[in-house]
């Protein structure tokens, strides 16, 4: 489960898709990292990922962690965004038979998890099918 501090630290990525772009070779990292793995440069500039892309792979999770059991089965997808960056995201508001490789999606702001009845509410991106 996400703690409030970990959730808060990740909010630029979860809320606004902020990524780091290597100032030397231009490679984009999401989430950001300290050293570029292709050119070893340590300087990055902030960039925002596009919020549209397509499913390149997906999997249905039927037996979930206990805090997601109400939502089972959950579709988890690897999404290739329009700039080529790949991210992992839950695909929401859909049934299994609507999913396929190549299907266009859009990222929407959704509730990602609730820390029990009284804990913090965690928000972030999920993919929805473009229809």
């Amino acid at each position, binding site marked *: 489960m996400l703690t409030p501090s970990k959730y808060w630290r990740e*909010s630029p990525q979860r*809320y*606004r898709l902020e990524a780091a772009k290597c100032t030397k070779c231009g490679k984009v990292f999401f989430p950001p990292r300290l050293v570029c793995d292709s050119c070893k440069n340590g300087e990055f500039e902030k960039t925002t990922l596009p919020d549209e892309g397509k499913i390149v792979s997906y999997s249905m999770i039927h037996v979930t962690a*206990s805090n997601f*059991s*109400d*939502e089972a089965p959950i579709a988890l997808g690897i999404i290739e965004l329009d700039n080529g960056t790949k991210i992992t995201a839950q695909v*929401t*508001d859909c049934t299994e038979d609507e999913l396929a490789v190549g299907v266009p999606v859009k990222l*929407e*702001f*959704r*509730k*990602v998890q609730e820390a029990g009845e009284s804990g913090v*509410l965690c*928000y972030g991106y*999920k993919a929805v099918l473009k*229809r």
Partner: protein
Amino acid sequence: MEGIVGYGAYIPRNRIKVEEIAKVWGADAPSYKKGLMLEEKSVPSPDQDVITMSVEAGRYAVKRAGVDPKEIGAIYIGSESHPYAVKPSGTVVAEALGATPDIHCADYEFACKAGSEGMFVCFGLVRAGLIKYGMGIGADTSQGAPGDALEYSASAGAAAFLFGNDGVIATVDATHSYMTDTPDFWRREYQNYPRHGGRFTGEPAYFKHTLGAARAILEKTGLTAKDFRWATFHQPNGKFPLRAGKILGFDKEQLEQGWLVPRLGNTYSGASPIGLTAILDVAEPGERILMVSYGSGAGSDAFVFTVTERIKEVQDLAPKTRDQLDNNKRYLEYGEYAKFRGKIRKIEE
């Protein structure tokens, strides 16, 4: 001249039909359909709430306005279903829009008129020159108790308006607020569902305040119904806004575009604001719009807008309201609806 510089609406894709609810409670669906002019309503998914819908509507408003979110100096979200009892919805929404940290934020509550309160204050702050842009949002995921009349109408949606004074798409020509202490509808602390005064919600509540605010703003501006191309009123059911409009002298053609309730349901704080977005989606430069909200308790905020030339440049920049209402729908059965809304719960593991 100050006014709206960007707007956006968000409607979840789930729907439930009046028949599906009536079937469970042995109620008479035709009487709801004819009596209240309700056909179906929107339902949020389990991962949607006032915060998520406000972010989507807010993003569309920023997109249409074409402004840097850092220049937004205030954000006010009006709702009676804020996800937290303590922690403003606006904190999360402003962060997601990229508008923090130099911003004023508060959540508003006033039953169904909390959204127009946010709009009212943003407009005032812009006019006073205290902020460059301000965002007012009306959003709700309201609930009616199972089997209660409200269960047929209480729905979900959000509308966001960015106010400013350059790049205005609709000027605010006048505002008027009208409020009294009227106990027509309320919810006490720790209660899941609201209570209402039945028939008392009509004449002394909805009509008195809606018509009171509308008549006052018409008198203030010297305008009559004929001077407007469009009007939208709070829409708790299909009948009330049409009747209020008719009493004020508006015809069906002026009311239809913003009259979304038969297939959207009552989005509470989102209701007349979402109606306004549907009007802005099709409005032409020079057209005048009247909007009157209503919130139980009770009061109404009235606005007169005039659409500018720039409207044509922004209408297609984000999803339109009636497209979200008409397309991409998913119909729920009552069981799935009850689960989505937390009306039934699984045993804790």
